C-alpha cells in the first residue's frame, strides 16, 4: 500500500518513508503480514472459551452451526463482545482505582509530591458522597478516597455517580436492572456470565454488558477524571502544539506514553527541575523537551500545555525520528513493538508500571510515595543518553500544529455564558435557537486498517460544516488537532454560519478537546447538566446529539460505546463493525433493538461522510421531537 494511503498526516507519511528506507517494521507492515485476517474471528464466530473447542460457526451455513457445548452464533458472538466490554471496563476502572488510591496516600501524607490542587472540586465531590466538608482538606480527602475506593468493592446498591444522570435515565436503568452496583463486581459478574455454560441469551448478555459498561462510564472513568482534577488541577483552555514536529533537535527529548497522569505529571515537573536542566545543558543540549503520546499526552497537554508528539499509530514513528532519548510508558495502548523499534536507535524504553512489563526492558517502578524521585531518575537517564544520539539518523518532520485544549464542563460553559459561575444556559439556548444544530462526540483510537486520521478529520469537518459542535477526546482529538481543527481560526475556515457565530463570540474552536479517554465521562456529566438546565428534554436520549468512534481499535472503545448507548446516545462505530456480523440477531439487537429499551443504539458505518449524514439525521430527528426549529442557517 502506498504511504499516502496509510495516513493523511504529512508528518506520519514522512517518518513512514524513513522507516521504509531503514527497513524498520511498523504496525502497517505487521498488518500486511496478518492479512487476510481470519474470517471467523472477524465475524465473531470463533469461540475459545473452553477446551472442548476451539469452535467455529460456518457463516455460509454448510458446516457446524453450534459449538461443542451447543452455543450458536448469537451466543458465541455476544459472549465474545461481553468479554471485550469487561476488559475495557477493567482498564478504565483500574486506572480510576490507581488514582483514588493516590488520593488516599496523599491524604495520609504518603504522597508528598502531590497536593490537592482543586479544593472546590474536592468539596463538591465529597458532598456527592455525603461527606461533611467542614474539615481540613486532608480529612475530606481521606474520607472521600475511602468512599471512592469503596465504590470499587461495593456489592450492592448503586454507584454514587449514577445519581448525576437525569432521573428519567436512572429510572430506565433501574427498570432494566442495569444500574451498576459496584465497579469491580460488574466486571467479575460479566466475566462469569461468559464462561462455558452460563448465559445463552444474547440479549441478556448484552444487558449485563451494558451494566458493566455503565460501571466504567459512571464509575471507574468518572473516578479517574474527577480525582485527577482534584489532585492535578482541573484543566482550563490552554494552547499547545501537536505532531511529531514538537520533538526538538537540540533538546533532550523525553516522550511520555500511556494513560495515567499521576506519572506524566511528575515527568512534567521533573523536566522543569533546574538541576536536571543544568545537567542537560552540560551534556550539550539546549534543555529538556517533554512530549506525550496517547491519553497521557492529552492529560499533560490540558493541564500544562505540554506538546503532543502524536496519537496511537505514531508511537513507533516518534522513536523512528531518531530524536527520542527516553520513552517512558505506563499502561494501555503501548505496542510491544516499541522494544524492537527502540533497539534500532539509542532510545531507551522504560517501563514504570508492574502491570506492563517488557522482557529485558529497563523497569523503573513508579510509586506514588516517591513519584518525583522516580520521574527525575528516568529523565536523568534520558539526559545521559543524549550523547548517544546518532545525529545522522535524526529526521524530525517539520510539522506541528497549534491547538487549544482543556474544555471541561466547569470551564467551557463558563466561557460560553460569559458569566462567572458555569451555566449551561447559553449552550442550551444556542442549541434551541438552532445556531448550534446539535452536539457530536467524536472519539476513539487509530486503526491501520483505515487511512490514519482520515476518518476523524473528514467526519469532524463535515459535522462542523453543518453547525454541529464537536466534542473530542483521545487520539481522535489529536488527529483533528494535527489538521488544524482545534483552533478558533478553524471556525472561519470550516464551520457553518451558526457555529461560526458562537465560536467568534466566545473565542472557542469549533471542535472542543475535552481530554483523555477516561474524560469521555466529562461528556456524560456535561450532558446531564444540559438536561438539568432545561429546554432540551428530560433524558440524555432527548438531546440532539450523537457519538462516533470512527477509527476505533481498543476494547476500551467498545466499553465506551456501550456506556454511551446505555446512556441513550446514538453511537456510530467505524471500520469493521464489532465482530458481531456473524450473528444477524445480535447485530440487529445492537443496531435496532437497543433503541427500544435504552433509547440509544449502535450503527456501523465505513464511510466518514455517511457517518456525518447519519449523525446529522439523528440530530435533526431529536430536534424535531423537541419541537425545535430546524438549524438556524440552512
Amino acid at each position, binding site marked *: 500500500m502506498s504511504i499516502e494511503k496509510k495516513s493523511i498526516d504529512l508528518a506520519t507519511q514522512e517518518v513512514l518513508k524513513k522507516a521504509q528506507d531503514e527497513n524498520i517494521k511498523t504496525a502497517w507492515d505487521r498488518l500486511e503480514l496478518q*492479512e487476510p485476517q481470519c*474470517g471467523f474471528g472477524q465475524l465473531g464466530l470463533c469461540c475459545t472459551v473452553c477446551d472442548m473447542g476451539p469452535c467455529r460457526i460456518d457463516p455460509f451455513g454448510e458446516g457446524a452451526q453450534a459449538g461443542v457445548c451447543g452455543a450458536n452464533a448469537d451466543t458465541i458472538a455476544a459472549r465474545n463482545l461481553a468479554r471485550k466490554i469487561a476488559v475495557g471496563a477493567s482498564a478504565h476502572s483500574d486506572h480510576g482505582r490507581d488514582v483514588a488510591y493516590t488520593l488516599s496516600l496523599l491524604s495520609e501524607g504518603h504522597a508528598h509530591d502531590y497536593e490537592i490542587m482543586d479544593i472546590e472540586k474536592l468539596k463538591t465531590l465529597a458532598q456527592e458522597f455525603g461527606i461533611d466538608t467542614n474539615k481540613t482538606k486532608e480529612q475530606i480527602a481521606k474520607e472521600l478516597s475511602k468512599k471512592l475506593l469503596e465504590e470499587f468493592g461495593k456489592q450492592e446498591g448503586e454507584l454514587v455517580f449514577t445519581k448525576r444522570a437525569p432521573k428519567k435515565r436512572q429510572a430506565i436503568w433501574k427498570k432494566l436492572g442495569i444500574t451498576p452496583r459496584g465497579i469491580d463486581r460488574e466486571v467479575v459478574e460479566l466475566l462469569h456470565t461468559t464462561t462455558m455454560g452460563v448465559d445463552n441469551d444474547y440479549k441478556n448478555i448484552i444487558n449485563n454488558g451494558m451494566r458493566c459498561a455503565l460501571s466504567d462510564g459512571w464509575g471507574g472513568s468518572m473516578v479517574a477524571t474527577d480525582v485527577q482534577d482534584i489532585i492535578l488541577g482541573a484543566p482550563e483552555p490552554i494552547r499547545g502544539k501537536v505532531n511529531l514536529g514538537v520533538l526538538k533537535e537540540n533538546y533532550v527529548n523525553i516522550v511520555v506514553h500511556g494513560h495515567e497522569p499521576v506519572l506524566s505529571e511528575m515527568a512534567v515537573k521533573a523536566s522543569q527541575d533546574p538541576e536536571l536542566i543544568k545537567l542537560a545543558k552540560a551534556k550539550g543540549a539546549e534543555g529538556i523537551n517533554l512530549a506525550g503520546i496517547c491519553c497521557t499526552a492529552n492529560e499533560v497537554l490540558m493541564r500544562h500545555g505540554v506538546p503532543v508528539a502524536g496519537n496511537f499509530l505514531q508511537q513507533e514513528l516518534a522513536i523512528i525520528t531518531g530524536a527520542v532519548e527516553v520513552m517512558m510508558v505506563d499502561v494501555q495502548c503501548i505496542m510491544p513493538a516499541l522494544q524492537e523499534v527502540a533497539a534500532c536507535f539509542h532510545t531507551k524504553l522504560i517501563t514504570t508500571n508492574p502491570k506492563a512489563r517488557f522482557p529485558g526492558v529497563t523497569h523503573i517502578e513508579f510509586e506514588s510515595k516517591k513519584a518525583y524521585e522516580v520521574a527525575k531518575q528516568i529523565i536523568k537517564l534520558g539526559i545521559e543518553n543524549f550523547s548517544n544520539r546518532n545525529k545522522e539518523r535524526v529526521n524530525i518532520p517539520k510539522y506541528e500544529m497549534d491547538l487549544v485544549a482543556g474544555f471541561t464542563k466547569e470551564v467551557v460553559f463558563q466561557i460560553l455564558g460569559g458569566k462567572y459561575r458555569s451555566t449551561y444556559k447559553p449552550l442550551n439556548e444556542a442549541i434551541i435557537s438552532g445556531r448550534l444544530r446539535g452536539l457530536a462526540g467524536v472519539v476513539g483510537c487509530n486503526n491501520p486498517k483505515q487511512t490514519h486520521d482520515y476518518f476523524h478529520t473528514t467526519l469532524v469537518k463535515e459535522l462542523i460544516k453543518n453547525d454541529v459542535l464537536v466534542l473530542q477526546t483521545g487520539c481522535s482529538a489529536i488527529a483533528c488537532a494535527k489538521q488544524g481543527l482545534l483552533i478558533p481560526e478553524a471556525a472561519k475556515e470550516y464551520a457553518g454560519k451558526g457555529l461560526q457565530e458562537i465560536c467568534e463570540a466566545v473565542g472557542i474552536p469549533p471542535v472542543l478537546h475535552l481530554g483523555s479517554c477516561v474524560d469521555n465521562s466529562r461528556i456524560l456529566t456535561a450532558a446531564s447538566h444540559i438536561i438539568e438546565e432545561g429546554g432540551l428534554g428530560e433524558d440524555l436520549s432527548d438531546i440532539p446529539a450523537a457519538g462516533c468512534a470512527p477509527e476505533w481499535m481498543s476494547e476500551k472503545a467498545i466499553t465506551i460505546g456501550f456506556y454511551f448507548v446505555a446512556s441513550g446516545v446514538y453511537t456510530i462505530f467505524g471500520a469493521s463493525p464489532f465482530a458481531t456480523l456473524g450473528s444477524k440477531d445480535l447485530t440487529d439487537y445492537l443496531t435496532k433493538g437497543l433503541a427500544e429499551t435504552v433509547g440509544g443504539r449502535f450503527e456501523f458505518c465505513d464511510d466518514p461522510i455517511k457517518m456525518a449524514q447519519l449523525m446529522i439525521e439523528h440530530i435533526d430527528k431529536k430536534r424535531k421531537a423537541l419541537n425545535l426549529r430546524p438549524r438556524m442557517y440552512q
Partner: protein
Amino acid sequence: MKQLYYDVKKCLGCKSCEIACAVAHSISEELFKAIKEEILSLPRKKIISSKDKNYPVSCRHCKDPKCVDACMAAALVYDKEKGMVLHDESRCVGCWMCVMVCPYGAIRPNIKTRIPIRCDKCKDKDEPSCVKACPTGAIIWQEETAMQPGTVPEGDCPATR
C-alpha cells in the same frame, strides 16, 4: 499448467481457505456482504481430517476426468489448453452424476442451486484465493512440471512475503 498442492504438515485445519473460497465465489466477493447474500456461496474445497492430520480436498482437474465421462449433459468438459475441467452452468441439470463418480469426493452438490460445487482454480483471478488466505503457506500454487517427487516448493506464506 498450475495446480494446487497441499503441504499436509502445515495444514492446521483452520479453514481460512474455505472461507476465502466461499467469499471469492460470492457475488460481492467481500466477507461481510457475502454472508448476507440471498443464495449463500459455498467453499469449493473442504478440509477433511484423518488420523490427526488435515487434508484439503479440492477438484484435481484430472487429465482423464471421471466426471466429464459421467456428465450426461456434456456440461463438464476437459480443456486441454487450460489443463482444467470446466463446467457450463447453462447445460447443467443437477443430476449429480459427477458427484457420484468423483474419485476424491471433491464435488459437492448445492441442492438449492442445483449446481455442483467444484474448485475452478479461481480461473478469473490471478491466483486461487485460498493460496493467499492460508496463514501457514500450506497451499502451494505450482506448475505440475515443477513438482519433483520429494520436494516441497515454498508456499505463499504471508510470514515469508
